[in-house]
């Protein structure tokens, strides 16, 4: 009985401490960023002015030229995924503890792809623009780099989760390393390979909009251009197209996932 009360008391103290900690942290960061509710509310008027007078209605006549840009975005996302997935497929077999030929290789590949993954696509694009100039090439390349980083990690994790008993069974038949990879590991890995690649496609299409804004081409570049030229009705049309593109890829990829897995 005493112990339970003691525990309850301690738990209460913990919750109280946590509450003060979180509150303190919030106040501290609000002061640090000069956050005030007054400012937030006073901005509402300007926002609605901007949205209703400048952005809306979307300029449907512009959709013809924007369509080309949106196709470029789709193309960048798709190529980034396909090329990224193929490179990541090879790298992930080196990076997973279950399939790597040597632990040193595993560490090197993991470190290398971790760098690729942790530098945001935006930064890759800024670096690449300096050498390739503005355009779709930059967007595609930075998406490939990001995809390789992300997919190698998730592919390797998927490979590490496969059932080692099944691999042992193939070893017991006298199979060779490549036979075991192809006949034992790959069939178990395949659903994860497809699901993660499709998810990567969604991420790429979202990212390619942002990357486009810093010079990667596609719809992002068109939006950026529109903002600079105060063509807000064109910008809102582009945003609508981006939404349609993202929602339809999400819908399509989930349908494909269902079919395959």
């Amino acid at each position, binding site marked *: 009985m005493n112990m339970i009360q003691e525990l309850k008391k301690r738990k209460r103290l913990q919750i109280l401490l946590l509450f003060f900690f979180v509150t303190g942290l919030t106040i501290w960061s609000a002061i640090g960023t000069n956050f005030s509710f007054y400012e937030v509310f006073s901005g509402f008027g300007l926002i609605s002015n901007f949205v209703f007078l400048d952005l809306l209605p979307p300029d449907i006549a512009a959709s013809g030229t924007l369509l080309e840009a949106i196709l470029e975005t789709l193309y960048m996302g798709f190529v980034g995924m396909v090329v990224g997935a193929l490179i990541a497929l090879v790298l992930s077999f080196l990076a997973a503890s279950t399939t790597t030929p040597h632990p040193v290789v595993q560490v090197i590949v993991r470190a290398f792809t971790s760098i690729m993954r942790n530098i945001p696509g935006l930064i890759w694009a800024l670096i690449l623009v300096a050498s390739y100039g503005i355009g779709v090439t930059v967007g595609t390349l930075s998406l490939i780099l990001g995809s390789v980083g992300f997919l190698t990690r998730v592919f390797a994790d998927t490979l590490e989760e496969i059932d080692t008993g099944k691999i042992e069974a193939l070893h017991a038949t006298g199979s060779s390393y490549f036979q075991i990879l*192809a006949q034992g590991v790959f069939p178990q890995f395949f659903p994860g390979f497809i699901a993660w690649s499709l998810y990567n496609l969604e991420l790429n299409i979202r990212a390619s909009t942002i990357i486009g804004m810093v010079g990667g081409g596609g719809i992002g570049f068109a939006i950026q251009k529109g903002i600079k030229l105060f063509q807000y009705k064109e910008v809102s049309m582009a945003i609508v197209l981006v939404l349609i593109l993202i929602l339809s890829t999400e819908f399509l990829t989930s349908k494909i996932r269902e079919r395959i897995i």
Partner: protein
Amino acid sequence: MNPILQVENLKKVYSDGTVALNNINFEVHPGEFIVVIGPSGAGKSTLLRCINRLVEPTSGDVVFKGKKINKIGARQVKQVRREIGMVFQNFNLIDRLSVVNNVLHGRLGYTGTIKGALGLFSKKDIAEAEEILERVGLSKQKYKRADELSGGQMQRVGISRALAQRPRLILADEPIASLDPASSKIIMDHIFTICKEDKITAIVNLHQVDVAMKYATRIIGIKSGEVIFDGQPSHLTKNIIDEIYSNAKQPLVNAQ
């Protein structure tokens, strides 16, 4: 007749210091159907895996068909493994592949690396795999995906995969531990009759003593990594069984 397998002074100590096997000695002659009994953790699985070198023995010798196989290179190990079929408690089939493809995995050791990796098996191998499936009563299931089968059917595929190797020796590690009694009987009957008909020697790990008594031509009792009984089933007395399983029962729930 020369023994097909000799195990001499076999010892296995795992890297965490656990002594799984200690001073194991026995000979296996062609045609024997040996059942290894013993409590969980006694070292039965390690023993089987030391025979086909899925586990590297710490010391001692394993002699298969007159050849020491504990000191040979990786390439030769693969050749030895081709002649030793293995059946597992969890079947270990590749779920997403067809039943016949799983059986054909038994032929990988005999197929070239690239052909094997791509699953291009010879017509002869495919015909033989289908024959084996017919033998275990799974002809109708041959194109189904392995994960569509019941547990008992999966284990029959597991046996078929081992048979596709045309093995001299079959190692079965608790082949019926995940099955219901009816399927267990079917599986044990299949293993027993096939080994007899094809003159395959078998070493089967079991924890059910009654099943062991029914099929074995010889029983080996293992406790804490050591052989404490080796003889005909008729010599396995109640006292010895109690000895093998004594102190082995851990309470499922620790009373506080």
